[in-house]
């Protein structure tokens, strides 16, 4: 009972970190080009994530999508293991946030669970084939696919339009970024709903085979929306400013590429990570515009972050599962340590704050064009 309550609390906190980690996917480019004011952008993203969470409540029957051999004949994923996995996921999400790295929250969750299950049930409980085919290979393909599409979209946009027209891409960016947010909401809040529902079922508080309760949907939607509104400014800075300097046409092209890739992948059965798609798109658009340069060092850091996300969160998850295996005091120690880690990370983050105020300065030449203003007024 206590464990189930803890799982719910941690799952919601994970949902929150998921939200603020992923604000950048949709909103880094419109903020970077000035298409949306930073606070407005995160507010739109938050609302659309909230809406998205309600639109789709198709919760996966297994948390891991077959990654862990669950159910009859396999391991019983107990609430204690879920708890340990969540601790791994949360700690890693916060570490990457502190470093400003856009890493996949799903990977962090899977990593944490893998670590916890290996300690709890042995390495045989992990389906290596699924790990490779559903996570590792898509993780390599996602950025390249999105990068290629974004590259071509950028080329098209720049070949059709003249320089003075390109500022108007900002208007389009408002819609494309909104679409990415909504798509994110329909996907990501479901993971937490699934975790909580499975914990409730495992704890005997809900009948097996039933969907999420209304309150679960509501709290998950709110948690991800609040997280999104809080805004992972560090990650927005990395994607929006760190990889390449983005012009409105590029932002539009990158978001169209992101949206198209995510929608195509979720609806045609080859799931790709939103975070990796969005980062790949930004790199692609940087390569696609003449005169733009991609900071490959930053891109390399991001790639390295993706590479170690699963092992790192697995390590934390494994440690948490080991402690939890010691009994009630172990679980308490787990939660105390996790809380301490979260506190330390927040205190560290205060040393060099990054928030919405960092984005009000326009990039030189990026979006102040008085000429356009006059024309818009004259035209009506």
């Amino acid at each position, binding site marked *: 009972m206590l464990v189930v309550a803890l799982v719910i609390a941690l799952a919601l906190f994970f949902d929150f970190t998921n939200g603020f980690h992923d604000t950048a996917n949709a909103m880094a480019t419109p903020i970077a080009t000035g298409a949306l004011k930073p606070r407005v952008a995160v507010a739109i993203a938050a609302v659309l994530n909230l809406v*998205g969470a309600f*639109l*789709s409540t*198709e919760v996966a029957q297994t948390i891991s999508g077959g990654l862990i051999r669950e159910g009859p004949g396999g391991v019983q994923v107990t609430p204690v293991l879920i708890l340990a996995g969540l601790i791994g996921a949360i700690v890693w999400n916060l570490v990457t946030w502190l470093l400003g790295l856009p890493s996949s929250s799903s990977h962090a969750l899977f990593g944490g669970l893998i670590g916890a299950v290996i300690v709890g049930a042995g390495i045989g409980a992990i389906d290596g*084939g699924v790990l490779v*085919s559903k996570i590792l*290979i898509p993780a390599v*393909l996602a950025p390249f*696919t999105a990068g*290629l*599409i*974004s590259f*071509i*979209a950028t080329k*098209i*946009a720049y070949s*059709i*339009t*003249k320089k*003075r*027209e*390109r500022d*108007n*891409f900002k208007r*389009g960016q408002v*819609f*494309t970024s909104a*679409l990415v947010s*909504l*798509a994110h909401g*329909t996907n990501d809040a479901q993971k937490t709903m699934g975790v909580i529902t499975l914990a409730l079922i495992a704890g005997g508080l809900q009948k097996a085979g039933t969907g999420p309760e209304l309150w679960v949907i509501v709290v998950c939607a709110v948690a991800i929306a609040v997280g999104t509104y809080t805004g992972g400014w560090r990650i927005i800075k990395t994607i929006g400013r760190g990889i390449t300097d983005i012009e409105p*046409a590029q932002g*539009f*092209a990158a978001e*169209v*590429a992101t*949206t*198209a*890739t995510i*929608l*195509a*992948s979720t*609806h*045609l*059965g*080859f799931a*790709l990570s939103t975070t990796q798609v969005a980062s790949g798109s930004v790199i692609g658009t940087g390569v696609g515009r003449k005169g733009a340069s991609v900071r490959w060092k930053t891109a390399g850091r991001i790639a390295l972050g993706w590479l170690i996300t699963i092992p790192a969160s697995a390590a934390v998850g494994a440690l948490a599962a080991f402690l939890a295996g010691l009994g009630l005091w172990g679980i308490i120690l787990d939660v105390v340590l996790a809380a301490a880690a979260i506190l330390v990370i927040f205190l560290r983050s205060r040393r060099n704050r990054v928030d919405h105020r960092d984005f009000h300065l326009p990039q030189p030449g990026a979006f102040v064009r008085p000429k356009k203003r006059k024309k818009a007024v004259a035209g009506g």
Partner: protein
Amino acid sequence: MINWSAFVVVVVVALVAAGVLVTLFSTALRVGDGDAPWRRPVSVGLYVVCGLVVAFGLYLIIPALHAG
């Protein structure tokens, strides 16, 4: 195993969708830039087509619209 054919379909669909959207929006911008009287309605028309493509995207995202 990896479902390569699904992956290829995803790439092609995403590429075509992104290409169409960007082309429509860019052309709308290009056409809208000028004084000739035919330009404005054509430009608006292209924006509308663009909007329809996005609306189709929304339709795909929201299961409630096509599930039942």
